[in-house]
């Protein structure tokens, strides 16, 4: 049954009904018992009074009785001949079982009392029907007020159940009042103890929702703001293209416009990537990923940019390494790291990508993991001073004087993807100068 109220009412009302029926049956049986006792006594008294009458004949005086017409008297001679019957035509009660007996005569149940006398046998009989009717009437008279009481009880039960379940309805209406703009916690004061765990969990959920909505709003606001500059550059370059006085100017404007478009696309792509890999973003399919091939793919994608700036890209690996994660996301992570390194390294500089395993207790491994896989990317650029390292992961954070074309989202994306994979990101100085970014993954024991 799907409804608490229906279940409660069905159970309680069934109980009330059963009580009523039980009371009825018991009362009736008791009434029958008592009336039977009374009537049996009646029968015997009648037989005795008949015996005590001096003569037996037509002048027989039958005791007057309200139920007189239901009594049947038969008197037998010692030889077994019917010498008197109060109602001729009635079935003959032949068997002389002395005392009380129940007999079936002409389809009806009769109670018969037989008394042996010096002159024969006197039998007085009464149909059971009479007793049963009397017992029924008496039982009903007793039960009527009880039934009324039980009906009232049933109504009370319905009302009490409704009142008992009212807090649930109130809770439902409280939750209904919440929407994206008002996620205030539900006051636990007015609710019964049983609803407290539910209210508590609901409030916790509302808090998480409010947090997620807040983050989403902040993200959208930040993104809209950040997009203005690239889009402005785009708009301005287009206007310059229109104004270009000669072919040379037009060619230059066209080239700049192309670069501005690239930049806008890059920012939009980074924003989407970040949104997708945030904790509230789409679910990540975790599979076994071979990290070295992912790193090689990412490096291949960044090659053109590195070559353009004359930067040497070196990869140091330790063979086949497996982690649990999403290959595409990991490739994006490595790409952002290498991209950053290439942008910040001075022209003609060097970027080192290193992949290796760390044993537990080596001081660099993840706590709680037997082994870790370490990916690190180092450049010989200006580095990030220790005081700014925590903020470096903030969205849109760019150091003053930082490299061209950056969106400020690279490290934020790296951190988001790393966290989805249970990995940890850290920044430190590279030697002799520059920045080293290290990502520690829990290793799949292979």
């Amino acid at each position, binding site marked *: 049954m799907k409804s608490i109220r229906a279940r409660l009412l069905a159970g309680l009302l069934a109980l009330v009904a059963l009580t009523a029926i039980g009371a009825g049956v018991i009362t009736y049986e008791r009434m029958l018992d008592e009336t039977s006792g009374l009537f049996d006594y009646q029968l015997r008294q009648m037989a005795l009074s008949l015996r005590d009458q001096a003569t037996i004949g037509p002048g027989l005086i039958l005791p007057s009785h309200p139920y007189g017409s239901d009594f049947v008297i038969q008197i037998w001679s010692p030889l077994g001949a019917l010498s008197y019957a109060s109602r001729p035509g009635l079935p003959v009660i032949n068997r002389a079982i002395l005392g009380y007996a129940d007999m079936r005569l002409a389809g009806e149940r009769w109670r018969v009392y037989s008394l042996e006398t010096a002159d024969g046998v006197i039998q007085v009989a009464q149909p059971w029907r009479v007793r049963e009717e009397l017992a029924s009437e008496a039982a009903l008279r007793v039960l009527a007020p009880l039934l009324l009481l039980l009906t009232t009880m049933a109504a009370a039960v319905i009302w009490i159940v409704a009142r008992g379940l009212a807090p649930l309805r109130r809770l439902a209406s409280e939750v209904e009042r919440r929407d994206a703009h008002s996620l205030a916690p539900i006051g636990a004061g007015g609710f019964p103890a049983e609803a407290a765990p539910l209210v508590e969990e609901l409030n916790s959920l509302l808090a998480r929702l409010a947090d997620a909505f807040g983050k989403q709003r902040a993200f959208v606001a930040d993104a809209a*703001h950040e997009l*203005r*500059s*690239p*889009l*402005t*550059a*785009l*708009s*301005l*370059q287009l*206007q*310059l293209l229109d*104004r270009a*006085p000669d072919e040379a100017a037009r060619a230059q*404007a066209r080239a*700049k416009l192309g*670069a*501005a478009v690239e*930049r806008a696309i890059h920012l939009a792509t980074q924003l989407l990537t970040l949104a997708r890999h945030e904790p509230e973003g789409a679910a990540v399919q975790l599979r076994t990923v071979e990290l070295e091939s992912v790193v090689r793919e990412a490096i291949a994608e960044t090659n053109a940019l590195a070559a353009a700036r004359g930067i040497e890209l070196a990869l140091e690996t330790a063979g086949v390494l497996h982690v649990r994660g999403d290959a595409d996301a990991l490739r994006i992570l490595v790409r952002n790291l290498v991209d950053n390194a290439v942008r910040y390294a001075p022209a003609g500089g060097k970027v080192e990508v290193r992949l290796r395993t760390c044993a537990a207790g080596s001081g660099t491994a993840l706590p709680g993991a037997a082994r870790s896989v370490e990916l690190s990317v180092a450049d010989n650029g200006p580095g990030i001073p220790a005081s700014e390292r925590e903020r470096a992961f903030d969205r849109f954070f760019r150091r*003053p*004087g930082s490299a*061209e074309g950056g969106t400020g989202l690279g490290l934020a994306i790296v951190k988001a993807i790393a966290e989805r994979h249970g990995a940890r990101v850290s920044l430190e100085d590279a030697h002799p100068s520059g920045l080293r970014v290290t990502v520690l993954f829990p290793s799949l024991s292979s």
Partner: protein
Amino acid sequence: MRVLVVEDDRMIAEAVRTALEQDGYTVEWIRDGASAAAALGASSFDIVLLDLGLPRRSGLEVLREARRRGIATPVIIITARDDVQSRVAGLDAGADDYLVKPFDLDELAARMRSVLRRGTGRADSALEHAGIRIDPATHEVLRNGEPVTLSAREYAVLEALMLRPGAILSRAQLEDRLYGWGGEIESNAVEVYVHALRRKLGAEVIRTVRGVGYCLPKR
């Protein structure tokens, strides 16, 4: 006209510079707030285009400090912040106008002219003096109603002089207007332009004040 562009985004700054130079302005580009404050203190500009989201010091701070120091150069704020509070704050900090990104180059040019006009207390954008009329918007030059053709640099010298009729501008000041910093200047370039102007407009238009500079004599 010398313009100081303070903007940390390279692409935007380059585009604005190209457009302004096409209109005959001389452009200096500064990328951060601290350098902007120094530049404003060190030399004079006719107008400043100021971005607010600058590294090292915010645009508003730079503006407030400049005003405190008595630098009255007209300033137009160009920024991505478009909410009312930011506009009010910018204008109250001492800006003469407030433009939101993305913006139209023509609108920028018109607002610049409007601000410059106000700076000299003129209602009409065109400058007139002694029968010569120039229109800063179109760089048209009319002498007694007849159009005159001037090169961009010649126009720049004429405009500089016509902005303050009667005031003497030194050769160094005129050179600054023409070239900004780091430009290659021939030592007598200004004289050459003044000579060309006299040829096209009449010898009495520009007076030489020996050892001081040039001016447009007041009638």
